[in-house]
């Protein structure tokens, strides 16, 4: 008995060495990590919905391989996320980790996942370090580098001929990145930059200050718990007529029901909107609305797209996902019907993609939606890709 156990242990320990990389795997293990509880969970729940929807449409198979999926809640705590990532790559030995809303969570899990040669697909977070010097052949983003949508918004505001802007962004890393991204493409005058605390509930002081500075427009990036309060208080201050609000990730499908009419007329820029004219996107939006009785936000779209990407790449390597380098190469080059339309990955595996102007309007049924308003940037690539040593 004792010898038997020992034998089993040895067999167990040697199993990975014995695995033939050239053989097709019999299943694919995917770990989904996102913020599913706590006050910052809304985008994560949307992301989870998009992820589940894609798997459901594929009949629980990814690239023909049965998918073994676990959903994990990082509670938006980096050390919890780190522990989950360790569990996924070491205990469950997943082939891919998908999801992640917040950049601090991504930074905490990134090394653990890519060092284990598991594929990491970010369906939202895109910190500059990962796009630049810390890039990895095993990392992919179906979203965008953190600065990119803000740069696109800067380009949009520039194209609109706006002269004077006040930037207001939450005081955390992504907030400062947002301001930097916006300024990289906006060449007019930035008369003030205001950085309220992350998740702050009351913005009366900041809004009063902005109104006294009389800009032509504001650029606002206040994610997390502060977005709905800011949106309501901005509308309540009655400034929209004189100061055009531009913003990113505040007025979107997950928050618009709570913001209500106060969101009308707010402009932004995005790589994807619900009305984007391509078959994959139309199918996704229709299916999402049918299943969840709500419009999807970008988070769901990105997670849905991540599964489509995996599906196409697994097919491309004929299920031989154990050969990680070939699999990663397939992910980087495979063509699939993305919800954003045709695009390519840059050397750092962030998308080179179009950005569109958006505005909050009412759709035919009277729902508030973020509608596309034409192209702003074509084939835009992030600012950090040349710091990435991958070719």
């Amino acid at each position, binding site marked *: 008995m004792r010898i038997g156990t020992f034998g089993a242990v040895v067999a167990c320990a040697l199993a990975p060495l014995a695995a033939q990389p050239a053989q097709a795997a019999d299943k694919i293990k995917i770990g989904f990590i996102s913020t599913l509880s706590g006050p910052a969970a809304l985008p994560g729940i949307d992301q989870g919905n998009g992820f589940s929807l894609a798997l459901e449409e594929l009949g629980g198979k990814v690239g023909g391989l049965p998918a073994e999926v676990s959903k994990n809640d990082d509670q938006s705590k980096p050390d919890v996320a780190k522990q989950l990532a360790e569990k996924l790559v070491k205990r469950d030995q997943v082939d891919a980790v998908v999801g992640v809303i917040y950049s601090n969570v991504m930074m905490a899990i990134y090394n653990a996942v890519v060092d284990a040669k598991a594929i990491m697909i970010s369906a939202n977070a895109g910190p500059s370090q990962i796009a630049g010097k810390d890039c990895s052949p095993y990392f992919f983003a179906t979203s965008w580098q953190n600065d990119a949508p803000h740069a696109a918004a800067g380009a949009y505001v520039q194209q609109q001929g706006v002269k004077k802007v006040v930037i207001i962004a939450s005081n955390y890393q992504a907030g400062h990145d947002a301001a930097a991204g916006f300024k990289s493409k906006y060449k007019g005058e930035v008369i003030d930059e205001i950085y309220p605390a992350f998740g702050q*509930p009351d913005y009366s002081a900041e809004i009063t*200050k902005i109104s006294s500075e009389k800009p032509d427009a504001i650029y606002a990036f206040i994610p997390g718990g502060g977005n709905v309060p800011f949106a309501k208080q901005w509308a309540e201050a009655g400034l929209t007529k004189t100061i055009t609000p531009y913003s990113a990730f505040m007025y979107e499908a997950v928050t618009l029901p709570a913001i209500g009419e106060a969101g009308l007329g707010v402009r932004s820029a995005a790589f994807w909107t619900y009305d984007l004219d391509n078959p994959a996107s139309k199918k996704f939006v229709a299916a999402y609305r049918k299943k969840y009785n709500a419009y999807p936000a970008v988070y769901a779209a990105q997670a849905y797209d991540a599964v489509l990407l995996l599906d196409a790449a697994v097919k491309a390597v004929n299920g031989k996902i154990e050969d990680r380098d070939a699999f990663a190469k397939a992910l980087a080059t495979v063509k699939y019907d993305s919800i954003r339309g045709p695009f390519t990955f840059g050397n750092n595996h962030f998308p080179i993609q179009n950005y569109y102007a958006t505005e909050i309007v009412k759709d035919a049924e009277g729902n508030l939606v973020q509608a596309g308003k034409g192209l702003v940037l074509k084939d835009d690539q992030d600012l950090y890709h040349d710091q990435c040593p991958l070719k």
Partner: protein
Amino acid sequence: MLNLTLVLNQALNGVQFGLMLFLFSAGLTLVLGIMNLVNLAHGSLYMLGAFFAATIYSWVGSLPLAILLALPVTFLAGVVVEFVVLRSFYQRDHLDQVLATFGLILFLNELARVVWGAAPLNMAIPAFLSGRVELIPGITYPVYRLALIALGLLVALLLYLLVAKTKLGMLIRAGASNREMVEALGVDIRLLFTGVFGFGAALAGLAGMAVGPLLSVEPAMGDGVLILALVVIVIGGIGSIRGSFVAALLVGLVDTVGRAFLPGLLVTMLPRTLANAVGPALASMLIYLLMAAVLLFRPQGLFPAARG
């Protein structure tokens, strides 16, 4: 840059913020002063109040009516919480109370998430309270925020009258210092405590309902305001309603004025990038620095309540 209109406007913002803080803190300090109970779950009652009002609002479509109907519901919720859980903790020390009510926060926040979902709910400002009004020539101010200031002052006045001038207030004050005496008068002190707790819950709920149209009604919305309220109570002196009124205004003003002017001031003294990093952080720290400073000179707070 520093013009008078702006200063006045920001001062009003600070007063409005402070009065809402007072509305929230009043119940907390009453419970602490009278029952000697640290209730961290006070923020959850604020959240419940806002949720009740938002739900009723979605049925009736009128904010004032929704608030009127949600108040007794929040009172009842407070009574239930007191009766089921907190009643057992009056005789325990602060550590036990902190831990038990921490557990209560976890439970109530998650319960709200199960019942109402994670998405924030919408409550709109009624038409007759929307827009801006000219206070003195050249200075306009949002009507709804003025209404909040009026509400805060009204509740403060009513509380003062209730505690200082009525027989009920006398009983409450006596109950804090002398249980036996109150019981000898034939008053059921348990019932009195339950009532006071429900009243405090309703006040917290009222604060949640009143700011609901400006903030987002969502699970865990009370966590941040709870910490601010604890700061208020400690600065004001534990158990003192007058103290928490003064401290709430002080905290509201310091926080608002700090956020409004401190970063701008630093930009004139430091390089822009450094000022952008230091200014907001310093503004966030101001109220904690204020509290540390107050405690340094007056460890019992500004208005230590006489305790038996």
